[in-house]
């Protein structure tokens, strides 16, 4: 019973919060609602019994990603409203609505096959984290390592991109660019 209540509550709240994210003109509001929406999504994960995933969601998203966003926002002017010209909002809503409609139709229909065999069944007697850990470090070891490397690369890339001076290039000879610029000027 409480599961039902929780589901509907979380659903309604996430929809509202994400709508605010998408619609709000203020970056700060948008980010705040996004962060709270993500917290609620971790709620879904807990309901679904994916405890570990829920925790990761909280740590990575709400913790790390949001921190990154807020740091990034310091570079931009966050207090000012974002000015956007929405030329074709009708198209946007039609497309969004259509995709929602089609997806909902698809998911509402009983189109799932009943006889799907679980590849990596869960074991309710042990904890979710243990289960996840075993699968992650056996079958998905290589993707896991790759993901780790990717994160490392992304971190370095982020540092370099954000930190380097804009008028200097570390990768190419600037004199070429200057020559091109000169040629453009003479034209």
């Amino acid at each position, binding site marked *: 019973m409480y599961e*039902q209540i929780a*589901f509907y509550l979380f*659903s309604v709240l*996430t*929809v509202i919060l994400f709508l605010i*994210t*998408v619609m709000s003109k203020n*970056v700060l509001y*948008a980010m705040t609602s*996004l962060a709270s*929406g*993500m917290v609620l*999504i971790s709620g*879904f*994960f807990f309901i*679904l*019994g*994916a405890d570990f*995933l829920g925790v*990761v969601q909280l740590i*990575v*998203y709400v913790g790390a*990603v949001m921190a*990154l*966003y807020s740091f*990034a*926002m310091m*570079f*931009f002017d966050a207090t000012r409203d974002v000015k*956007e*010209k*929405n030329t074709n909002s009708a198209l*946007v*809503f039609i*497309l*969004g609505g259509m*995709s*929602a409609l089609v*997806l*909902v139709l698809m*998911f*509402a229909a009983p189109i*799932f096959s009943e006889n*799907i065999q*679980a*590849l*990596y*069944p*869960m074991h309710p007697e042990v904890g979710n984290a243990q*289960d*996840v850990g075993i699968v*992650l470090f056996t079958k998905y070891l290589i993707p896991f390592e790759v*993901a780790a490397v*990717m*994160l490392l690369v*992304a971190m370095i890339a*982020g540092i*370099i*991109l*954000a930190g380097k001076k804009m008028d200097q290039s570390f990768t190419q000879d600037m004199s070429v660019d200057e020559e091109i610029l000169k040629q453009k000027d003479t034209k």
Partner: protein
Amino acid sequence: MIGLNHYLIVSALLFSIGLVGVLRRRNLLMLFFATEVMLNAVNIAFAAISHYYNDLTGQMFAFFVIAIAASEVAVGLGILIVLYKKQGSLDLDELATMKG
């Protein structure tokens, strides 16, 4: 009783909201938020399927989605900062440099 379909529908709705955001937003930062919404919507679906089929694969995928989302944000924000320094704006419409 809450079934798999319920979760999937919620996921679909959230995904559509994200899509609307992607289409509607001109500010690159907002665009990033919208993509996060879409990614999270998909994660819900993964987790739900994982739960109802009693299979861990869905959760695995959700992990990787999160990992990718995190690295995307790292790199993406770096690019955004570079861009902002260069252009002084994050408006998509001013970024017509991809025209062939």
